[in-house]
């Protein structure tokens, strides 16, 4: 084995014999967790029947502007290209 390879082998082996507390670090380090709920249902959406005589608002007119957290996102490059 080359010196580099020996160094790599011992670095990897050292990771395997770290104390259990250090190895379990993955469970304690700062993670951002997300849990998902089921999305398949068998009910009918309450709004399904709203405005049945009107157009079904399929227009791609984009009369609305983003009104979310994006107002908090500032600086840097704010347009593509």
């Amino acid at each position: 084995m080359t010196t580099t390879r020996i160094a790599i082998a011992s670095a990897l082996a050292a990771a395997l014999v770290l104390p259990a507390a250090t190895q379990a670090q993955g469970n304690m380090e700062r993670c951002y967790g997300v849990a998902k709920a089921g999305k398949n249902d068998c009910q009918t959406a309450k709004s399904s029947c709203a405005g049945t005589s009107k157009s079904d608002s399929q227009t791609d007119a984009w009369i609305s502007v983003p009104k979310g957290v994006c107002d908090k996102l500032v600086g840097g490059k704010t347009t593509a290209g």
Partner: protein
Amino acid sequence: MPLALRDLQKAFAAHLSGEDQPALVAEILPAAQRLRIHRHHMLDSLGSALAATFPTVQAVVGADFFRRLARAFIGQSLPSQPVLAEYGAGFPAFVAGHHAARDLPYLADVARLDWALNLAFHAPADGRLAAADLAALPADELPSLRLGLAPGTVLVASPYPLDRIWAASQPGAAADPVDLAAGGVRLLVLRRPDDAAFVALSAGEAAFIAGLGEGLSLEEAAGRADTGFDLSACFARLLGLGALAAAQ
């Protein structure tokens, strides 16, 4: 002459897809009014499914804007199978190409993070490597091991501070502004026992993991990392996170 079932379902499907009004007659009302209930339900329920899969995108642009974006996507890309947790693979690319999102150049990366978290959450639990699995192996065999990433483990890199955007999008987050010029991130998305999660990686860690994902050996992947890279700490961290696949 009554419609054959195939023709009826074809006509109904065409209406739901936003195509021509079928020549259907309901017993009580002109069919169009009642058919619209089904079309509204389809659009609403698929929009809700996309909102649940892409909650950060929705938080960033707001519910009204998201609904329009979702409807435009649904209009060109209906689900091809019934499991809604698996619907929306094409949404990040759709967002990237949509004119309405051109002023929000980070939005497609936010969608990629949401999709990766969704995939990780639904990934199988097994097939994860633990340190003990390698304990019996002679140290000189470790460098040539090809480990790969565990199911659901995905690297998401972006020139924008996606982790801060994500945190600012959570319910109850502080109103502090996020500086988009704060620099890019490399996030490792992974499945955990009760949820999916992401952690931030250094450039060296990201290069090492990307190498493992391409099928390189541990030694070859370590060669991808920069000089300050701590192989021992990174390998221990990945094992602790359950990010690596069990050896074949």
